[in-house]
């Protein structure tokens, strides 16, 4: 019973302040508080740590270091290069060394200030190109290829080479990392964690404690935002709380202070790329080669999977017949960079979009002309051997053009620019194509557990974690539709490792696809049992003609007197199980790494955005005026939730390209270390004028024809970089315009007035000379 009036079910609790995050649950008696001591330097040898003063501080119960770990001092999920506590070397500023456990949060924080370390500081590496040169590479570099790039360049009218740099991005989930562990019987424990990956926490905690997985129960109510930042990086804090609880047999809570969260956790990977693009005179791209250097930070984390996705998206929505894309994960002394909405894809796209802008400048064409000309068509190939099926690059672009008339828009912008000198407008188009599925094929599995109680209410458990993306609301919609009952009957339970084993993380935009499909299967199994029962009661030989609609049973299309409640109670009395469990694995996907070829994605999501900005030439600041976009949504399960995902993703993309400037010193220290210096978009910065148009179309492989929506919209935001650049090109000057995101007001002003900068320095120099 899918109603058109959709809801975000959690919102009613949220708006009343009644939702529970980890530390909102009333504290159990005797709960202690933990605080993490991290390395003050980004690279060095840890000679010793002195905790004697800290131990004497008020309220301190114990201080744990690597020596206290009963199991393995290792939580690396992909490669074992991530000890829970550093014991001999420190590799990034904030690298955890010790854990203070005290009676109160304040006591624990206070004791941190009394810990002393003896560290032999070594020079830090923060530039991935330097790491690459030093051979400090994680895993092995990868290369995707299509056609024959080298010979194709020979046929090009224009060949351009350049460099594109893009900085990282802080997740800035409003709820910082946190966990609470509670001892249960014997040596068992229960961990409440703000994690996108309960199973990763369970496995890692068990490994650290030397326990079998089944002794560690992990429960997740909800997250105050994740965006990838709690996929792998929630694990270490949960393990620390678990360790303390295990050793002290008391509940322990660890909530990261915002400043520590900023300092200690990894972010979106900065990338730097060298591109070479070859085109015909009229803008057809014939060849593209690119070398991506990923700044992985100090530990592997998920970097290799992120790297892979950069390659998968290195040609964005375009078909380029000859491609060679190389990517290397370079180890530096930044905190381990990690998943962030888009997962490497956006960085791949920034490089190709830069190359196209470069080509547009040289060819005297508009960017959008080249973009449109090269859009991927049905049946064409991606550089990893997958053929485009149900390709929507052209349809979304053309729909956007039909709705918003790009030529007329361009003419309006030109007219404005002809009349104004103090302000200039800029316009850009941004097509997006994003593959859906975990690229590690084995992760594309999920299960659902459905209980029906005798009053007809339904409890649903899956591996999906609610972090604001609305998975619970979508699962409610799916379960209600699958069972043909009212949504009010469905409750989605916490995500818990005892109800769903070995779950994949809630990530890769695939959470609804996977868990929703499993839910449909579980519901169908239940309904099959009911059909058998009802057929028997109705003496019908054809149970397949029994259908369910709106909480009522129909036989051969006619209503019967069987209601949902009657079915449930009869099933119970007839000793038919009211619980079902189902498993789903995405069919028809594979990838062969030895050949870098396969069909890694169940499908792709497409879309096209047009963005306009206004630049204040005097001050170098800009405003985003308008975003119009057409997004390929499939058949929405929950339109309201999906719209929120599109708008929220877009906002993060816009921030990444403009204000959000992660600044690290050469010594690896985070300079933008607080919300006062790291600026994410606020309501004023984002345009009021955003219009989202959904291209709705049955997706044959998503639950009820739906498509994943979490990540792709972020990449529309990349367009704003090129819109600002477009406005800068409309000024009189000869700004150098390198490709270096984010395009902060500082970079804009310095580029616009680059000739003035040198002149301005003359006055103080003269003054100094006069004073000598």
């Amino acid at each position, binding site marked *: 019973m899918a109603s058109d009036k959709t809801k975000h079910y959690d919102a009613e609790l949220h708006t009343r*302040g009644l939702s529970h995050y980890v530390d909102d649950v009333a504290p159990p008696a005797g709960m202690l508080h933990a605080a993490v001591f991290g390395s003050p330097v980004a690279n060095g040898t840890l000679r010793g740590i002195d905790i004697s003063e800290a131990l004497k501080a008020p309220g301190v119960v114990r201080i744990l270091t690597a020596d206290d770990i009963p199991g393995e001092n290792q939580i690396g999920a992909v490669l074992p290069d991530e000890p829970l506590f550093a014991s001999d070397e420190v590799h990034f500023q904030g690298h955890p060394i010790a854990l203070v456990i005290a009676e109160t949060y*304040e006591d624990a924080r206070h004791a941190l200030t009394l810990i002393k370390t003896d560290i032999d500081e070594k020079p830090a590496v923060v530039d991935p190109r330097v790491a690459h040169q030093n051979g400090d590479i994680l895993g092995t570099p990868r290369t995707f290829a299509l056609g024959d790039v080298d010979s194709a360049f020979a046929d090009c009218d224009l060949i351009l080479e350049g460099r594109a740099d893009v900085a990282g991005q802080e997740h800035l989930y409003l709820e910082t990392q946190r966990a609470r562990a509670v001892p249960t019987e014997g040596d068992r424990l229960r961990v409440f964690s703000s994690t996108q990956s309960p199973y990763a926490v369970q496995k890692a905690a068990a490994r650290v404690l030397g326990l079998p997985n089944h002794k560690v129960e992990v429960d997740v109510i909800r997250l105050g935002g994740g965006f990838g930042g709690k996929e792998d990086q929630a694990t270490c804090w949960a393990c620390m709380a678990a360790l303390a609880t295990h050793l002290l047999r008391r509940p322990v809570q660890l909530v990261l202070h915002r400043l520590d969260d900023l300092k200690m956790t990894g972010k979106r990977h900065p990338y730097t790329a060298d591109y070479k693009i070859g085109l015909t005179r009229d803008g057809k791209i014939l060849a593209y080669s690119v070398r991506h250097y990923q700044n992985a930070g100090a530990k592997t984390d998920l970097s290799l999977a992120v790297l892979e996705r950069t390659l998968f998206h290195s040609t964005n929505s375009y078909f380029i017949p000859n491609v060679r894309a190389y990517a290397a994960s370079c180890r530096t002394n930044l905190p381990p960079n990690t998943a962030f909405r888009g997962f490497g894809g956006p960085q791949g796209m920034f490089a190709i979009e830069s190359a196209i802008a470069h080509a547009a400048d040289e060819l005297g064409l508009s960017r959008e002309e080249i973009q449109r000309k090269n859009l991927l068509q049905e049946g064409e190939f991606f550089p990893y051997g997958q053929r485009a099926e149900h390709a929507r690059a052209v349809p979304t672009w053309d729909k956007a053009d039909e709705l918003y008339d790009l030529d007329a828009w361009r003419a309006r912008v030109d007219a404005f620019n002809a009349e104004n000198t103090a302000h200039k407008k800029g316009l850009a188009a941004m097509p997006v194509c994003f593959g859906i599925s975990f690229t590690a094929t084995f992760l594309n599995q999920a299960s659902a557990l459905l209980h029906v109680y005798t009053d007809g209410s339904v409890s649903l458990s899956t591996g999906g974690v609610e972090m*604001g993306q609305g998975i619970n609301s979508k699962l409610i919609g799916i379960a209600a539709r699958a069972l043909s009952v009212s949504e009010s009957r469905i409750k989605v339970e916490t995500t818990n490792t005892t109800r769903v084993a070995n779950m994949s993380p809630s990530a890769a935009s695939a959470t609804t696809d996977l868990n929703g499909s499993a839910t449909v299967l579980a519901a169908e199994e239940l309904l099959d049992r009911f059909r058998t029962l009802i057929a028997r009661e109705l003496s019908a030989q054809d149970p397949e003609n029994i259908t369910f609609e709106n909480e009522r049973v129909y036989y051969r299309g006619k209503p019967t007197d069987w209601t949902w409640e009657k079915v449930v109670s009869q099933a119970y009395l007839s000793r038919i199980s009211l619980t079902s469990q189902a498993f789903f694995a995405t069919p028809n996907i594979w990838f062969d790494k030895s050949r870098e070829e396969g069909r890694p994605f169940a499908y792709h999501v497409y879309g096209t955005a047009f963005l306009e900005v206004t630049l204040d030439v*005097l001050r170098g600041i800009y405003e985003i005026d308008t975003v119009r976009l057409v997004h390929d949504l499939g058949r929405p399960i929950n339109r309201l939730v999906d719209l929120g995902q599109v708008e*929220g993703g877009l906002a993060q993309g816009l921030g990444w390209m403009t204000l959000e400037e992660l600044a690290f010193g050469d010594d690896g220290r985070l300079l933008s270390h607080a919300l006062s*210096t790291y600026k994410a978009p606020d309501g004023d*910065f984002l345009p009021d004028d955003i219009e989202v148009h959904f291209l709705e179309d049955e997706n044959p492989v998503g639950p009820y024809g739906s498509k994943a929506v979490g990540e792709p919209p972020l990449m529309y935001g990349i367009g704003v970089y090129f819109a600002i650049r477009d406005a800068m090109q409309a000024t*009189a000057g000869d700004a150098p315009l390198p490709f270096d995101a984010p395009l902060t*007001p*500082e970079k804009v002003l310095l580029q616009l007035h680059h000739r003035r900068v040198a002149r301005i320095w003359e006055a103080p120099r003269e003054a100094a000379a006069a004073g000598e």
Partner: protein
Amino acid sequence: MTQPVTFWLNDQPIETDAPDGLLVLDYLRRQRLLTGTKEGCKEGDCGACSILLGDLNDGRVVYTPVTSCLVPVGELHGRHLVSIEGLNLPSGLNPVQQAMVDRCGSQCGFCTPGFIVSMCWYMLGSPDHKPTLQGFQRAFSGNLCRCTGYASINRASLDLVDRFSEGGDLHHVWTADDRVAALCDAGLLPTYFTSIADHLATIAPLDEEPMDRLEEADFFVAGGTDLYVQKGEHLPRTTVKILNRHPEMKGIDRLDDDGIFRVGALTTFEEFGHHPDIQAIIPRIQDYLFLIASLPLRIRATLSGNIINASPIGDMTALLLAMDSTLVFDNGDRRRPVPMKRFFKGYKIFDKEPDELMTEIHFPIPEPGTKIHFEKVSKRKCLDIATVNSAASLRADEQGVLRHVSLTLGGVAAIPLYLKETSEFLLGQPLTTDVVLDALRIAQGEISPISDVRGSADYKRLLAHQLLCAHFTEHFSHRVSPEALLAS
């Protein structure tokens, strides 16, 4: 024996012996287990901790939105503290909550209580005659949301604007003489709100401590918006004196006989910007304030706090410096006026004795025709610290000759900088493009910016140039050519 701090928390009377310096956020979450109020940053930058404070004023309670992570418990005496829980109806949703649910203005929900509080403040306490989208946006300008991109929150706001505007079902509530009472009558706010004024009236004021005993405390807290950011984890373990318990240090008077304005040192940014006499001399003050911190911060931050903070990029400092202010200090025995242009001695070094309080700020009433202008560029326009700011007080006679010039720049030196040479150079000069360009060159010799996280030295020099230009292009575009300055 100190008196307990006595106040109302939602519908409950409270007497607490919690330390004065404890933050209201910690008090709510840890001591009262009211966990709807969230901690996102503890630095005033996210608004997840938003609460309302109600003050009795002429028999009515007047509410303001503030960030509970920067307000000490010692400030609560005699007030109504409203947390998100206090805005909940016994069942169902209030109109703000309903609109946010309908429009899905909430995703992960962590920011949501803060938004609801800010928007409820607009609904029950904003002085706007008509509700507007912009009004709601200003109300939640201190609230950060990482999930929604704000579009759905804007739609929720528009729904509310419709309902409370003429023709909407709740229009009568907006226009009612007592909006809080009307909301209660309509079942849209919990009814306990109607009795709060009577309750607050029964709370006896705290015995005021004489000013000369103030030095016994470790810290003086004014708005706390700087102090708590710098020393937040330390303050609850120390003794603090709440300066706001001295209302005589507030208020704005235009003393025509003396030719000056006398402004209480604890006057907040909002009080300053809303005062009609200030608006008369600085017509665009509201626009400038919009660039400074956020509404909940401006409601708390005081002028003296901004000046004594001595940050080279203090915004009100730049303005007051350009207006040739004099600071009046008092240690209980002795009053000491200090011209602001001589107050700052070096980075965070200034002419104030530890036992002195700033009690007043004086500045001359500007002569008619004086243009007072403020410019600020920060990475993000709102709720961000300036990379460079600049204020100007300028007056030209009918021939276009400058008869009064006072220019300041922030973020380009160790102190908030009065541009002495540049100002003196311009005085008596005719306002032409060339003169301005000469002045801009002189200004470059007066500044010495350094590179930091807010910008490189090059950028700051360039900004200094651009913002100084802006004073002239904004107010004298008939005399100087913006195009020529831009092209220079």
